[in-house]
């Protein structure tokens, strides 16, 4: 099993969710986060006062999928989240040792 974490632009969330739903991925955890990579921050002047937005608003998606589906999910996710500009975000993939469904103690991929 693989855990896929993606940091994406907030305005791409609906598109990404729809694309993942299209390949049968419904379950995910979504968080509102802030951060920056190469996009750096943003500065606005409002009535003579500088507003520095060092940490830009982003959305973080987390999901665990069967190993065999990981590539397809990543491809779909990246395709839907991409604009081609700096700030599109990142995807991180890691191994998952075990998954347990709390309700009935299902284990492994059947718990996903």
């Amino acid at each position, binding site marked *: 099993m693989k855990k896929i974490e993606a940091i994406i632009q907030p305005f791409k969330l609906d598109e990404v969710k729809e694309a993942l739903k299209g390949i049968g991925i419904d379950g995910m955890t979504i968080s509102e986060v802030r951060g920056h990579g190469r996009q750096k921050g943003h500065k*606005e002047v409002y009535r003579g006062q500088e507003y520095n937005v060092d940490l830009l*608003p982003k959305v973080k998606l987390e999901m665990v999928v069967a190993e065999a589906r990981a590539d397809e999910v990543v491809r779909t996710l990246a395709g839907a989240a991409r604009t081609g500009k700096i700030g599109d975000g990142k995807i991180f993939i890691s191994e998952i040792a075990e998954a347990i469904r709390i309700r009935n103690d299902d284990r492994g991929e059947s718990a996903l």
Partner: protein
Amino acid sequence: MTVENPPSSAIAKPVEQAFLATGDALTALAERTADVDRTVIEIATGALFPAAPSGLAILAVGGYGRRQLFPYSDVDLLLLFESERQALGAKEALSVFLQRLWDSGLRVSHSVRTPAECTEVHDTNTELNISLLDQRYLAGDRVLYARLADKLPRFILANRDALIRNLSQLTRERHAKFANTFYHLEPNVKECPGGLRDYQLICWLTQMRETEAHHLGVAAPSPDIQQAFRFLARLRCYLHCQSGRDNNVLSFEAQDAAAEHWETGRAMGDPADWMRDYYRHARAIYRAGIRQLEASEAQSSSLFAQFRDWRSRLANADFSVHRERAHFRAPQGMDAGPELILRFFEFIARHGIRPSFEAEQQMEARRARLRAQFEQARPVWPALRTILSLPHAPLAVRSMHETGVLTALFPELEAIECLVVRDFYHRYTVDEHTQVAFQNLWNLRAADEQPLASYGGLLSEMQNCGALVFALLFHDSGKGLPGESHIHGSLRLARTAMGRIGTPAQEQEAVLFLIEKHLELSTVMQSRDLFDPQTIRGVAHQVETVERLKALTLLTYADISAVNPNVMTPWRAEQLWQLYLMVYNELTRELESERIGFSVDADLTGPPQRVEFLRGFPVRYLRTHTEAEIDSHMALEEKSRKRGVAVEIRKLESAYQLTMVAAADRPGLFAAAAGTLSSFGMNILKAEAFSNRRGLILDTFTFADPSRTLDLNPTEIDRLRTTAERVIAGKVDVRQLLRNRPKPVLPTRSARVPAKVSFDGKASATATLVEIVAEDRPGLLYDLASAFSSHGCNIEVVLIDTQAHKAIDVFYITAEGRKVEPEQRERLEQALRQACEPGA
């Protein structure tokens, strides 16, 4: 009630089967209680009393004590021991007793107490004290029980204030968990405001109030409250039977099932209609509960009584204030027309005093008559706008809603009353969402942490909250109309309502814009890249002016935050603020760069004379002026041909407006006009200075007349106009006029707005943008404009706005036809800062 395919757990229980067949909850509860009584007594007789033949009594408490044991509710037992030593001695037998109860299928919740413990106030265990109001002897030592039963009334009598205080706190905390409203889409029928717990609150408070030294008080709620209780009891019983557990949440699925099977003697296919019945009953209980609670709190708090007395001084000829509630002195005055009722809500909105229950009933009783009165076109907009702008306006509007006055005034809002629209994120009915949105908007005034404090600042800058709040009240009104997009429906309803109450065209236009675009900023945040300049330009073109942007931002904040209490996260609030900032800056940039006939050809239509007049003015001019105003400006231009200048002064609703047209600009022209107004003691609220391609100058000043000079001496208007024309034409030196200007009254140090002056050389290709925020004072604009002139700067475009003692000024300036050079900028900035000083 009949239910097809009831859950298997229900089939096993005869009491539940009987209930599902008859729908008679009270009988079912009493029968279950009797069943449980038998089980408890039987097990106690076998397992407990042999080890504790005396010195122990078993009491039923809580709902079980009241003989209202719902199918899956806990069985609350109080094990009353003579002494702690005896309780310790019976520990093992007690354990066996409880285990057997559990084994018999009862979920027991027990407590072990001595009579002394039962007659102490437990500040941290109010439930124990209160549960004794419903205690009932089951089995065991009757003498011991009699001792407690004897002491209990005297204990309650002696500690009534403390017990009420604790119960009150517990209730307020519970209500707060549900945001103090019963209009939840999926309510908890036991715990929510207006639920069964509140029915019990009514009973408990009555019992405590009527307890005497030798007997506990008895609750006898009014028939409508008893009817509401029967409805809720039946509903809870049904939820238990349906889910086979202690489930009290009326989910959407349960609403569907209940609407289908609830026999009310009428067709109830629509769950939304059935839910209206639920809210009606919950409302009756909630209001009665709050009424009792407040009356009890007031009786038990001398501090409150003092405050209450102080508030009664706010009474006037129409309304009295008694026990922190407003009363009509002569309620029959409502029959003559709606004026008294509108003044009543203005009183509430001004002072934050809620209507008395009598006043509520008096208004409710006149609902039909009120409706008939309001059906006729009546110019009530000014009164309504006043109400909607006052410090406690949300309380007034909520009171109007609860008494039915709001729907009498606006039948257009009837379709969203208690309306459940199923949405995963929404928590409240549509009407409650609107009320919460308004309250959340007003709460911004007290916000002192970012980013909410910024929104609060924005709200304080709103000159007219009436249009904003009216838009908020109607923004979702279309949700009650089937088969139509809710925005179109809302627009249609708002238009009809505003036409009937005489809302001026300009405010109607502001309201309709806000309703039409109320989802725009949310959509942009959700689906567009905020850091893409195209996105920002797109929004700027939609909102067109800073005034509209401010109102739309506040409406969006209020709307989102009223979806549920957790949806407006700091993350989202910051995102919305970021969007506001970027669009604000784009609109300020456009002020100079977007010129009619250059960048916006589509707007330049009409007769050649009109086209020639408009060409070169900022696009804002078209966006902020009606056709009639443009016509009057063209007429003024015609008038100016002879002498090169023409001035017009007209009275607005609460201010005056001076418009001047000059054939050509000259250094200090704007300062001269501003100075003339200051010399007459006028206070400039807003100003605009634009020029077209031919170099025609059109300046508009909106000003207040604090001494009412023009109101009381109409001839002064002519003198002001003539003087302004002479000053603008250069025949009179404005400095001479200002020599005798009275010194302004300075605000206290703590109230002062720190001056901010900023320069932006990139905002425009040809001019430098200077933004100034400063404490407003008479003559400020003249001093600023003079500072520009004396530094050789020409004012190209000006936009001045004054709100809440704060002047927010935007100037586009040039020096010898070019942007201001850095070295000149430093000197100019110093002069401007000096001009902003209160004593300048």
